[in-house]
């Protein structure tokens, strides 16, 4: 099992704990990764505000590079990378004229976008390619008694037509599936597929922080020990701005936010330290204690 690997900017930038955690989990499960050192940022939806075509071209380029490297799948570890790349793919695959225009822009680098490459989040790779049984074999430290609230991030759930939900309906409950598989309990709550507020952080901090307060506060009220997300941008907001959210809400929240590979790693018996749990803004010790590590 080998993939072209697109780590994205944030897993090496604002959330440097994510990259090594994801790598360790992949290694344990025998997923080989060929990192795409030459790929650019997906644009994260921001570049697309300025110029959609620019975003589509950069993503076409990334998929074309993967094809040249001999792969049909790019593994990503960020909901936003997944969604933005999937949307670009959807647009390109459904518009021949546009695809030809974009290919003309890639010609100088001798790249061709064919549509044969698909982006696939580690979350989906685990369920669809590795398989639940094989993961179960690696669960050495079941997270029993731990209550986890899933938080997907917009781009891995919407728009549904570009995310392959028709062929793979299990993607829509993938986080819950893995939470249960590692022996933890799912805290279901209305906010799990809503927006974390990160994209409007610089524009309207109050509204953005209000979203953080609602989601983390609701999950906490329902008894969650931690929240789990496959999106590092959500992590930046839900973790980094939780102190501001608690202030806005007028009561403490203190809900640790785990990157989803960290949850997998903990269940596989890796130490909190090697998974970078000490690098979060919200103290993760209460969860570490719950899984018997402190």
């Amino acid at each position: 099992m080998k993939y072209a690997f697109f780590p994205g900017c944030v897993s090496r930038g604002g959330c440097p704990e994510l990259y090594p955690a994801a790598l360790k989990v992949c290694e344990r499960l025998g997923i080989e990764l060929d990192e795409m050192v030459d790929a650019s940022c997906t644009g994260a939806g921001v570049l697309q505000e300025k110029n959609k075509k620019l975003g589509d071209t950069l993503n076409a380029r990334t998929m074309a590079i993967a094809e040249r490297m001999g792969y049909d799948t790019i593994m990503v570890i960020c909901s936003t990378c997944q969604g933005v790349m999937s949307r670009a793919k959807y647009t390109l695959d459904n518009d021949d004229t546009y695809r030809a225009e974009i290919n003309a822009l890639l010609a100088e680098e001798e790249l061709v976008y064919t549509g044969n490459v698909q982006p696939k989040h580690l979350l989906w790779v685990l369920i669809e390619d590795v398989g639940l049984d094989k993961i179960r074999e690696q669960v050495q430290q079941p997270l029993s008694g731990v209550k986890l609230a899933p938080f997907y991030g917009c781009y891995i759930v919407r728009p549904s037509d570009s995310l392959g939900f028709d062929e793979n309906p299990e993607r829509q409950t993938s986080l819950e599936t893995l939470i249960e598989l590692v022996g933890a309990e799912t805290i279901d709550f209305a906010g799990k597929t809503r927006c974390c507020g990160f994209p409007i952080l610089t524009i309207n901090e109050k509204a953005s922080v209000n979203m953080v307060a609602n989601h983390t506060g609701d999950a906490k009220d329902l008894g969650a020990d931690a929240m789990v997300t496959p999106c590092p941008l959500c992590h930046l907001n839900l973790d980094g701005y939780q102190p501001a959210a608690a202030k806005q809400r007028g009561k403490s929240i203190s809900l640790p936010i785990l990157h989803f590979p960290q949850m997998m790693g903990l269940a596989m018996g890796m130490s909190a330290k090697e998974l970078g749990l000490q690098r979060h803004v919200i103290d993760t010790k209460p969860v570490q204690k719950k899984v018997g590590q402190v």
Partner: protein
Amino acid sequence: MQVKLAVKRFDPEREQDQSYVQDYTLDVPDHYTVLDALIQTREEVDESLAVRCSCRASICGSCAMRVNGHAGLGCKTKLLDSMDKDGVVQVEPMGNQPVVKDLVVDMSVFWNKIRAVKPYLQPEGPEPEREYVASNDSMLKLLQTMGCIMCGACVSDCTVLEVNENFLGPAALAKAYRFVGDPRDGATNQRFGELDEPGGMWDCTRCFECVEACPKGVAPMDQIMNLREEAAAAGFTSTIGARHAEIFADTVKHSGWLDELQLAVKTPGMFNIGAQLHNMPVGIRAFLRGKLPPIVHKAIPSVRFVRRIFEKIEED
């Protein structure tokens, strides 16, 4: 087939003004929509159930409601696609708008926002002898936004409206693009100026909820992105949102990937001391945890090709 509708009800005349869920179990034909089942309920089981509808064919926009938590048209949503394994369908009124009774909401919130974007043509110059003419081609890009039937589903599910009622919201912004993009309209700059204000086009968090909810393929968020792109191209670049997109693009052009440090420092403005101080606690907390992006930001090996793509598209 048998279906159980779990309807969220609200009666303003009830003693305690809390909403409650009432279940109705019915026998219905397989092809029934959620609206068909609600009408049958009202006609045969409970005439007090309030539901708004007219065309029953996805044309009039009267019957928007939430089915299993997501907004859409009751008359376009098949029961068969909505029942869970026990045959239950959850029906609620739309969100972000006050409930009048049961599934009927007060849409004045919606209409006020639509009115706020001046949803009519404001042509410039002397009146032509006959009609104002626009070429077919120039109107093609507006077909999507012209498909809006004013149902309110997008507004119901908008995540920003939940925390900021001043936001113009998806339907009104999509409508704004319908006029900004119309070659006969002469008020484009004035419109951009107004849309640039707080609560306008930059307040959307790009969550795709409206794209998912819209029953007519309007994709309001895409229209908001069109507004942003065209406003920036017309020189409306002073808002934080526009600057953020600009600096983001610059760092990607420069190195191939995002330089978060540059983005964080430059977006509010290097010399905007107030904003820099305000952001400091977050930065310091991140720093103390070893969570800051690398100070040295290395370009990808083939960055020149990325730059070429930027140049070629910018030339256009």
